[in-house]
């Protein structure tokens, strides 16, 4: 393991100190916690809290600030934060109009955020939540844990953040969250695995010329291993899979996120973007109304990328995506 760190078990603590010091005009670390909260005048709006295991930087602390999250609760690397920490995040986010939790669909995250909700309600804070499950690599079924929450969560942060900033109520945010979640579809691939510093070795092995389709953001293996292909073939695999799940018609409007997994240069992300464009715009005749390319939801040092589509079934979502924010990573 080759990493610029000190003791592996100090990584999250030191990272949060580094981040909150560097961007102290936007965020602060709540003392004695792993919560990054925004510096912002409270004014009776709905607070938004997200979080999860660390290792997805700039998620989630990088999206804390005006127009996006009120607080991010950062667990150990790839490990859900605990309810007491989430409770601190909820308290920091509370402006009196209720707090909304953006949870990615992992058993650990769901259980810990649920317990935190219970604790918060004991302190008379109204809490509601969405469980984001955009990863179509995993088969969905009511008999299983269902789809994972991955990079699409960042669009959820942005849209809900903008709505909250505009003064939406907790119920309105909940409804919006459900609607967005239904139109959110992601899929990823890896060229190399991630190495959790506390584990010290890669989460899986890939041959020199192998890639893995359908990986998660914690080094979970995916659905198929293959020889490396040109970018346009990778794009084709993704678009085919997404079309099957999302369904669309010529003229539909989409928001799109090409997301690097942490060790993939922007050069490759933009080449891939160009191939995606050819498929979605030139061939499928879709309208890409909003696009982001870059590292938004990473898996530490994994090389690879994911593609997220949001079907813009509501015109206002585009305004929410475009509205101004003051955060580190958007």
């Amino acid at each position: 393991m080759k990493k610029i760190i000190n003791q592996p078990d100090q990584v999250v603590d030191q990272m949060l100190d580094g981040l909150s010091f560097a961007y102290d005009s936007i965020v602060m670390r709540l003392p004695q916690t792993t919560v990054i909260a925004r510096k912002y005048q409270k004014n009776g709006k709905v607070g938004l809290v997200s979080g999860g295991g660390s290792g997805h930087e700039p998620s989630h602390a990088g999206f804390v600030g005006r127009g996006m999250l009120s607080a991010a609760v950062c667990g150990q690397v790839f490990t859900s934060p605990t309810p007491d920490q989430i409770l601190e995040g909820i308290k920091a986010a509370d402006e009196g109009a209720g707090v909304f939790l953006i949870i990615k669909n992992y058993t650990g995250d769901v259980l810990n955020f649920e317990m935190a909700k219970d604790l918060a309600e004991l302190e008379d804070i109204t809490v509601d939540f969405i469980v984001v499950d955009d990863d179509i690599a995993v088969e969905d079924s009511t008999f299983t844990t269902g789809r994972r929450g991955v990079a699409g969560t960042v669009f959820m942060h942005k849209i809900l953040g903008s709505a909250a900033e505009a003064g939406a109520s907790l119920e309105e945010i909940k409804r919006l969250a459900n609607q967005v979640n239904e139109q959110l579809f992601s899929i990823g691939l890896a060229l190399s695995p991630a190495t959790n510093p506390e584990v010290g070795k890669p989460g899986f092995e890939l041959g020199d010329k192998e890639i893995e389709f359908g990986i998660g953001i914690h080094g979970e293996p995916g659905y198929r291993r293959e020889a490396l292909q040109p970018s346009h073939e990778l794009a084709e695999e993704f678009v085919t899979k997404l079309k099957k799940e999302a369904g669309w018609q010529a003229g539909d409007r989409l928001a799109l996120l090409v997301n690097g997994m942490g060790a993939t240069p922007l050069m490759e992300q933009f080449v891939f973007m160009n191939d995606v464009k050819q498929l979605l715009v030139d061939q499928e005749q879709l309208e890409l109304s909003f696009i982001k390319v870059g590292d938004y939801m990473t898996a530490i040092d994994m090389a690879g990328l994911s593609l997220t589509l949001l079907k813009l079934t509501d015109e206002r979502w585009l305004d929410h995506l475009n509205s101004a924010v003051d955060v580190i990573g958007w």
Partner: protein
Amino acid sequence: MATIEQWLEALLHFCEEIPQHKDQLNQLDSAIGDGDHGSNMTRGVQAVKDKLDTSSYSELTDLFKDIGMTLVSKVGGASGPLYGSAFISMAKTATESSDPTALMAAGLEGIKKRGRAEPGEKTMIDVWQPLVDKLHAGQLTQEAVSEAFQNTKEMKASKGRASYLGDRSIGHLDPGAQSSAYLFDCLMKAGVLNE
């Protein structure tokens, strides 16, 4: 009926066993999860040990509550709320009963409720459920513990991270089942649960 000293001895032993098997638990979790179950549990039991070393208990309910809260706030991941819920549920039952079987049954219920899971889904429940059944029948044995744990191998996961693998989860032992097996072992060694 087990004394509080026996419970303490068993649980302190558990706090030593887990760190010794940290790598093994991480490895089991690497195969079908994210490789951190040993690290998560170790972080938790070390905090539990600190807590137990600096506290004294006359009531089981207080002991279980402290353990449950400590696990909830230190482990994280899926296993933190699950083990935490087990002990918090045991703490509630301990206000009425000190019967080990009733207490372990309460623990199992805590896990099932929190995890919304049933036996056969390749989780720690697949150790807890058959062993609580054995306890009720007065038939708990060392072999029953390892048998329950081994049975998770051929199961297909439908809860937790392993469920993402679908059929590919078959053939691997469940890490949470292994840590639970250690718990039952410790409870038997200290005589809290009897063969």
